[in-house]
């Protein structure tokens, strides 16, 4: 008998008893729908900021290049920006910003500034949601020193439950995205004392541009 069969047999043998161990629960409530108050974007921004992300509210997506240049200048991040393969961002008018040097290359291991789009944001936890694809390789979210994320106002969802529902709709009949990443602020560690120190293995800065 293989270990697979042995383990499954043991589980099945315990099953009648296993069921007996379960105490009746009035309402399992397995689809909890916490509904936060009206202003989803406001709530998201507040929580993201509380988790040490920075947020800049813009008008249209066309304002992104200038906002990026401004941010990088303010933070002293140099002039190298990695756009990644995403055409949504690549097609913006980066030329007009003379001070920026943009490339499509993967981020340098020593850390760069990367800009990406995202799939959604979750208001009740301050999380950005990014989904991997050929346009958005997962390591773009983790290798750079600074991660700039463009979020559309209409991408903000109330909670996990709405996120799951939307993913199910968008990926119906297709395989699930290889990586779905929920990101709350910059990388940090609690292993060097309290409070946690920012900038562990992932980006030390997360900057969100709301368009």
């Amino acid at each position, binding site marked *: 008998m293989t270990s697979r069969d042995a383990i499954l047999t043991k589980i099945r043998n315990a099953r009648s008893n296993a069921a007996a161990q379960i105490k009746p629960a009035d309402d399992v*409530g397995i689809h909890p729908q*916490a509904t936060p108050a009206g202003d989803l974007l406001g709530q998201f921004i507040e929580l993201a900021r509380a988790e040490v992300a920075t947020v800049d509210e813009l008008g249209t997506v066309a304002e992104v290049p200038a906002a990026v240049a401004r941010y990088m200048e303010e933070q002293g991040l140099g002039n190298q920006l990695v756009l990644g393969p995403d055409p949504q961002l690549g097609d913006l008018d980066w030329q007009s910003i003379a001070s920026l040097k943009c490339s499509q290359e993967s981020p340098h291991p020593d850390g760069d500034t990367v800009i990406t789009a995202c799939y959604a944001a979750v208001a009740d*936890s301050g999380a950005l949601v990014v989904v991997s694809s050929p346009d958005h*390789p997962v390591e773009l979210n983790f290798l750079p020193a600074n991660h700039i994320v463009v979020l559309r106002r209409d991408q903000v969802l109330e909670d996990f439950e709405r996120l799951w529902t939307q993913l199910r709709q968008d990926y119906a009949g297709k395989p699930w995205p290889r990586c779905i990443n929920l*990101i709350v602020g910059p990388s940090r560690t609690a292993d060097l004392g309290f409070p946690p120190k920012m900038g562990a*293995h992932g980006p030390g800065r997360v900057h969100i541009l709301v368009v």
Partner: protein
Amino acid sequence: MQTTSLKFRQLASQALADETLRTALGDVERIMPVIRNSALDQLENPEAWFDRASASRDRTLAELDVYLEAFEQKVQQLGGHVHWAADGTEACEIIAGICETAGARTVTKSKSMVTEEIELNAFLESRDMTVVETDLGEYIIQLRGERPSHILAPALHVTLSEVAETFHRHHDLERAAPLREPTEMLLEARAVLRDRFLSADVGITGANFLVAETGGVVIVTNEGNADLTASLPDTHIVVTGIEKVVPTLEDAGLMLRLLARSAAGQRLSTYTTLIHGPRRAEDSSGPSNFHVVLLDNGRSDMLGTQLQEMLRCIRCSACINHCPVYTAVGGHAYGSVYSGPMGAVLTPGLAGLHAAAHLPNASTFCGRCEEVCPVRIPIPKMLRYWRDREFERRMTPRSVRYGLDWWTHMNASPRIYRSLLGIAARLLRGLSSRGWITRLPGPGRAWTRYRDMPTPAGQTFQHQWRRTRGRAGES
């Protein structure tokens, strides 16, 4: 699973004498309950969430085979492989086999208690592989050759100056300026581990949850090390226990709401990642090989028994952070990779009661663990279950067994009990000076080693009652 739990008494005494450990544990005790409470307060009615979460776990455990098979099927459809390991040795063999097929020389790992449980690092090293832990705390203790002292903060016991000293010694920094600030240490570790991430052949991670609905593996970190471990090498191996499966994304969301709050007072950890299989044909990066190793190692034996509820555990460590015994002696005293209240229940289940005999006894039954557990595991009840087994198997020290037996007999008749208490009161008064006893003989010595005992104030209550209120008061 190796334990040194039988040396609990001795290890605990050593730990009590360690002043730096005391400071670290003092921080846990002071900070964790505060940040946990405020994070849970963000949820409307956290107790209702606890109810839902424990019901969800119970529902899963009642049909564990169904969800495991569903998960397996989904992973296979996504192009991944699922392996089943009955015990730690089998799991290690499977993992080493995958690594060898991949021609692995360097393996990166993100923190995983299951791999600690099966002692994977030593196994892979014995097969000539270099294993690099990438969680900062885990990396620190790996360099120091130590074991984790907390399931989520493995290097809790290491001070900052010890971290600096460890990096100096192992990073060839002998001539460099000393690392003083935590941020300098962080940058140093980040730089060294960056190279490791990029050069690794295989990445090994644990899993916080497995989602049966989608075949997804949920991994949660604050550092981002699990994501780099999982996405940069060409092979990703997930090693986890069979109980980690949840039916749907809603169940996962439910657990995630409680996990980060209970663990670290966060709404959500910095990185919550759901991974579905290996890289796709159209992807430019990501591992080509994706394996999930499902470990039993004693878990299925708990199903259908009074220990089943322990399998609800989501490893949040709230019970540990709130335990008066843990915060007095720290994790190493438990002599097991799982420490604190959850460890005291799990370790005998995984390593055998004989290897862990002290652990179920090293509790005051204060019940705070059960109170804070987000999946409502009745830990004191389970510690009692183990104490019952110890008594049954005559593992309880003979003096205790005889003592209890004698006590039962003395209580068989209220008259005997009353006169026994009367005698005890007289004897204790004989040892007393000015109302207090500072030294007791026999088993009482353990009491007066640290504290005094008040002298019984006059005759026993029952004696006085019978004398003053006489028959009127008796039934």
